[in-house]
């Protein structure tokens, strides 16, 4: 049927869709396990795997020189995580203090985390080493469908002029989907305001470019409302505080927490998280044992409601406790220019002078109406998976279904449940699979854990040989000397 329609078809045993961090990490694993580039393709609308990640981190105030929130030994360019980023930066910059910090984290020091630039430079090195660009096919994936006889068809729209036809098709035994966050999610009241007034300049999401906010504040004193209590809110606050200090600005900050955490919280002495001044504190996106310890082992055994409950227990918005941020917030509170408040916002409207009025209702019944020049929504990247057409199609026609927290249900080895076809398998990793047997999916190390599970599953199916200690060691030396896999 496909041939009769005149659409060109290419056979490729393993295809990964997305071309971001998830695809890269998976290809990196498989290349190191021993799969040649001729057996794999990645379909993507971006040119290099860290492009979207870098865009989002830069918007949310982490340019290359700043540090991301990620463990030193979570290296997407190095599946062994050794040497860790801390060792590398300490060596390159001749800074033994990094070693002291990593030794004493998180007890006497903040967690040591790598610079965004360190991550990107290493990714580039590794992408070259595994010949990533030999596998890259530019295009937009429309859908992935099971084909009669096993395996899958992937329908792709190539960029204008890149192919003779409007569509091309890949026929593969294995498909891997790692298309990241389906989209930004706006707070309902802010979305309503933006749609009603067509104002995309003053009410912004922190993951959108919003440099105009900081530029405006350099020209005259202004007020900013921050919404959200996660890492992005921390970052944006730091930028506002830094600018205040650097340029002598008068910026006033009103910070609205929907859930205001005033201290340690949790149901039991064995599950209590630190917090204070509105925030819940945690080193990384998830409790550390999610990536290999107790929580990982426990979650692996849970199904349905029990799993959803465990997710809820360890979930909740949080941010790391960093000494620098604490200092800045303390100074802000005592200097009267940083005002954290608890409340939910009923609506946002234009005031008489054209500025923004938020109607904030606190749990004690008090209604405040702070007026601001800008509102920055720092609440996240949490859109529904069905907003992405590939997932919508898989849920509707592909046999896939949702997990207890509403995302894509995958096996322990990251095969999408309900989509098996003959000797083929469809895998997914990244944020779309949150809620599965492994929780830390949308993190560097989580993507590597998923990639390892997928590579080992492919080994069980005979696509590649499982990597043992000898190959692993020899491959590590190749990585160290930057020689081809």
């Amino acid at each position, binding site marked *: 049927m496909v041939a009769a329609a005149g659409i060109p078809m290419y056979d490729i045993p393993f295809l990964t869709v997305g071309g971001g961090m998830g695809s890269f990490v998976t290809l990196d694993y498989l290349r190191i396990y021993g799969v040649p580039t001729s057996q794999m393709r990645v379909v993507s609308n971006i040119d290099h795997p860290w492009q979207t990640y870098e865009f989002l981190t830069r918007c949310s105030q982490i340019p290359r020189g700043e540090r991301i929130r990620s463990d030193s030994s979570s290296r997407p360019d190095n599946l062994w995580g050794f040497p860790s980023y801390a060792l590398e930066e300490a060596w390159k910059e001749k800074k033994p203090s990094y070693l002291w910090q990593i*030794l*004493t*984290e998180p007890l006497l020091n903040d967690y040591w985390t790598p610079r965004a630039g360190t991550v990107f430079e290493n990714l580039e090195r590794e992408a070259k080493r595994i010949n990533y660009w030999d596998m890259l096919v530019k295009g937009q994936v429309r859908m992935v469908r099971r084909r009669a006889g096993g395996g899958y068809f992937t329908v792709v729209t190539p960029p204008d002029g890149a192919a003779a036809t409007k569509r091309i098709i890949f026929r593969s035994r294995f498909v891997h989907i790692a298309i990241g966050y389906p989209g930004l999610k706006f707070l309902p009241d802010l979305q309503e305001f933006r749609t009603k007034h067509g104002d995309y300049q003053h009410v912004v999401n922190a993951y959108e470019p919003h440099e105009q906010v900081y530029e405006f504040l350099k020209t005259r004193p202004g007020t900013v409302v921050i919404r959200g209590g996660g890492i992005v809110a921390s970052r944006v606050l730091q930028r506002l505080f830094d600018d205040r200090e650097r340029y002598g600005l008068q910026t006033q900050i009103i910070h609205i927490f929907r859930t205001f955490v005033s201290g340690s919280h949790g149901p039991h002495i064995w599950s209590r998280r630190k917090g204070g001044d509105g925030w819940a504190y945690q080193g990384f996106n998830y409790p550390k044992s999610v990536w290999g310890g*107790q*929580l990982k082992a426990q979650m692996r055994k849970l199904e349905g409601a029990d799993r959803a409950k465990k997710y809820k227990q360890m979930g909740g918005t949080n941010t790391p406790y960093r000494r620098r941020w604490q200092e800045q917030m303390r100074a802000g509170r005592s200097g009267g220019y940083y005002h954290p408040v608890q409340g939910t916002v009923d609506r946002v409207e234009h005031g008489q002078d054209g500025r923004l009025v938020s109607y904030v209702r606190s749990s004690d019944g008090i209604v405040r109406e702070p007026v601001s020049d800008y509102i920055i929504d720092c609440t996240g990247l949490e859109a529904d998976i069905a907003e992405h057409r590939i997932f919508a199609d898989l849920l509707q026609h592909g046999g896939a279904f949702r997990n207890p927290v509403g995302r894509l249900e995958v096996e322990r080895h990251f095969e999408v449940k309900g989509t098996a076809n003959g000797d083929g398998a469809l895998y997914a990793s990244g944020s779309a699979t949150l809620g599965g047997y492994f929780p830390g999916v949308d993190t560097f190390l989580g993507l590597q854990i998923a990639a390892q599970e997928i590579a080992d599953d492919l080994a069980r199916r005979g696509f590649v040989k499982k990597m043992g200690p000898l190959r692993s060691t020899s491959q590590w030396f190749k990585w160290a000397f930057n020689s081809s896999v």
Partner: protein
Amino acid sequence: MVPTLWGRIQTRLFMLATVGAIITLLIVPVLPGSSGPLSERYLNGFLVLAAVGVLGIVWELIYHFLMQFRWEKDWPTLFGLLTLVPEGLVLYFLLRSGAVDVIDPVPPAAFWTHFTVVWVCIWLVTNGPMRVPFIRWRFRGGRVL
């Protein structure tokens, strides 16, 4: 690596049997203050290693219990290093008191040199190089099997 209970125990035994054994082989002939035939000193060295393993199972149970008070259920790198102090002291006094009579009394300098060097080497290997041959180890809470 963030350990599970079973992972802790396995990692400890595995490390003692590999890194610990190699270091013991290398270091016993040059340990300060020890005397007697080399074969006996080796026997003693390996018995000390075995004692660290056996007692260690009890220690790991204690560490696992203490870890439950941590929200992240993690075990910071520094803990892994500093626990050498209580473990070393308890073992040292057990040996000195003659409670473990299969092991001959060890001269303090020899015991502490041997114990500390083995401990630090194991700690270093556990915090990095171990991940090079064993890529699944860190994701399994330290289980080797």
